[in-house]
């Protein structure tokens, strides 16, 4: 046992970006164990996905042609069987909503430990995984005292695999027990009004918990209007229903990459910062100088947003 099995993630006919990062993390592990890098493509147009995933460092791609979309009961069975068939030591999954919907079950069925949300991995004589604790305030190193493990990796922490590879693509005949399939996916819904796509915006003015009250959102809207920007938000604002869900930036919302991102009253939790890393310039307005947003920001104004935001709007009128 020394192989590494990466399970690709896809949704509605497209490979999700985290898959390419999994290939790089998986290759690192395979190099350390001296094993082959296997990739599992389960459901959807598997041949097309396999061609897309045939990138540098991949040795074998296994296609499981079963259904169109992600179903955790199908994934759990197929991945467990594949991990056993290819004699994998490690299974690498994306730390995503769907990844966390099946990886724990795979780990249970294999009897392997599961380490989630890895930001770094290394192998000495044992696998060690670095992950954050306390909302990113501390970084823990977790040593896996077992020969095998399931690891979920945080999106964006590894680069995307490039180059065209020369992997062998072969179908895998998974034995799916239909009686064990207890869920049925019936469809998808886009949330929000859909009139604005914040991931396309050049300039975003983003509002967080510091705005305190729903009616104060107007201050931020006025600034956005004055500078020709789009309004986005951190999770708490959307949870409270003050802005629609399609305005949410972060790991559970949208990943954005504007030229300028202005974070107003946003503390900068890791889940939020994960969604703004691609921004060219990040500006923070927050009266707490120890807020983690300042670890990500290029420029900042440490002052009361209720003074700063109207004053900034005025500069453009």
């Amino acid at each position, binding site marked *: 046992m020394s192989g590494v099995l990466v399970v690709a993630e896809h949704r509605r006919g497209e490979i999700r970006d985290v898959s390419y990062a999994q290939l790089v993390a998986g290759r690192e592990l395979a190099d350390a164990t001296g094993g082959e890098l296997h990739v599992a493509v389960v459901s959807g147009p598997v041949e097309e996905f396999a061609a897309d995933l045939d990138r540098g460092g991949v040795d074998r791609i296994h296609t499981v042609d079963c259904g169109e979309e992600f179903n955790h009961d199908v994934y759990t069975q197929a991945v467990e069987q594949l991990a056993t068939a290819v004699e994998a030591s490690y299974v690498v999954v994306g730390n995503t909503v769907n990844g966390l919907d099946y990886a724990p079950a795979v780990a249970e069925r294999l009897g392997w430990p599961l380490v989630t949300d890895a930001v770094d991995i290394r192998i000495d004589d044992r696998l060690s995984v670095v992950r954050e604790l306390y909302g990113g305030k501390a970084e823990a190193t977790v040593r896996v005292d077992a020969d095998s493990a399931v690891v979920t990796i945080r999106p964006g922490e590894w680069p995307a695999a490039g180059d065209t590879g020369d992997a062998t693509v072969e179908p895998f005949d998974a034995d799916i027990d239909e009686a064990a399939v207890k869920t049925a996916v019936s469809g998808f819904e886009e949330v929000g009004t859909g009139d604005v796509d914040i991931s396309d915006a050049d300039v975003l003015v983003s509002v967080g918990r510091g705005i305190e009250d729903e009616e104060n959102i107007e201050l931020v809207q006025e600034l956005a209007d004055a500078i020709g920007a789009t309004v986005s938000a951190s999770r708490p604002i959307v949870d409270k229903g003050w802005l629609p869900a399609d305005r949410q930036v972060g790991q559970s919302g*949208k990943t954005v990459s504007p030229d300028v991102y202005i974070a107003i009253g946003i503390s900068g939790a890791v889940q939020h910062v994960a969604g703004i890393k691609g921004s060219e310039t990040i500006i923070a307005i927050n009266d707490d100088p120890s807020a983690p947003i300042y670890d990500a920001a290029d420029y900042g104004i440490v002052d009361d947003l209720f003074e700063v935001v109207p004053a900034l709007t005025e500069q453009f009128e």
Partner: protein
Amino acid sequence: MKVLVTVTEVANADDEFEISGTEIEETYLSYDLNEWDEYALEAAVRLGENDDSVEVVTATVGPERVEETIRTALAKGADRAVRVWDDELADETMLDPSRKAKLLAEVVEAEEPDLVLSGVQSGDVALGATGVALAAQVGFGWAAVVNQFEIEEESVQVHRELEGGVEERTSVELPAVLTIQTGINEPRYASLRGIRQAQSKPLEVRSPSVPGGSPLALTDLAVPESESDTEIFEGSAEETTAELATLLEEKGVGT
């Protein structure tokens, strides 16, 4: 119908803290009911309000200290509580979702609920995996990251919140574990009447019978290096915004 809610107490670290060994020193930690579990609890209590035959039971792994948090959950409308503890657990780090799930699985097996609601993750260790591991252990159906659900005769219809503003509609057979996302509802505050009633609601302590230990060991805890070289504008709001406006204009914003 019986609904079991897993309720976790989380440790919040101050902005500045000291680490000794692989732990944050106790004086820099404060404890609270896990934010995600607040929403799971609210969802369960609402089921009970609409139907008198629904019993809401909370399950918590933790030392005596967590009883304050459990009482808060009872004050918000849970009917009774189970706390799982054994002094030997104090030496464990709880970084292993399978280990934590095993402790809760014993409660599920004893209580035989129709539905288990669990927060998507805890605010401190953020494993994000305990609920699904629990479902796999007890043979329940499950759905992770649920932001809407409706119970039917033999199944539960859920919306799972995927990334990027997309929701998946899924049907899950009962009994099931749902991991509940923030924003699914608006959690209530405990009423004074609720707080009084909570004092007399049953809170049972059980010791686990599953063997301890985990193959995951915490070997280091450190403060991540800050990569920040943020340029902070100094002065009055008028001065700082003038500087920022100049910067924005240089970048072609607002011109």
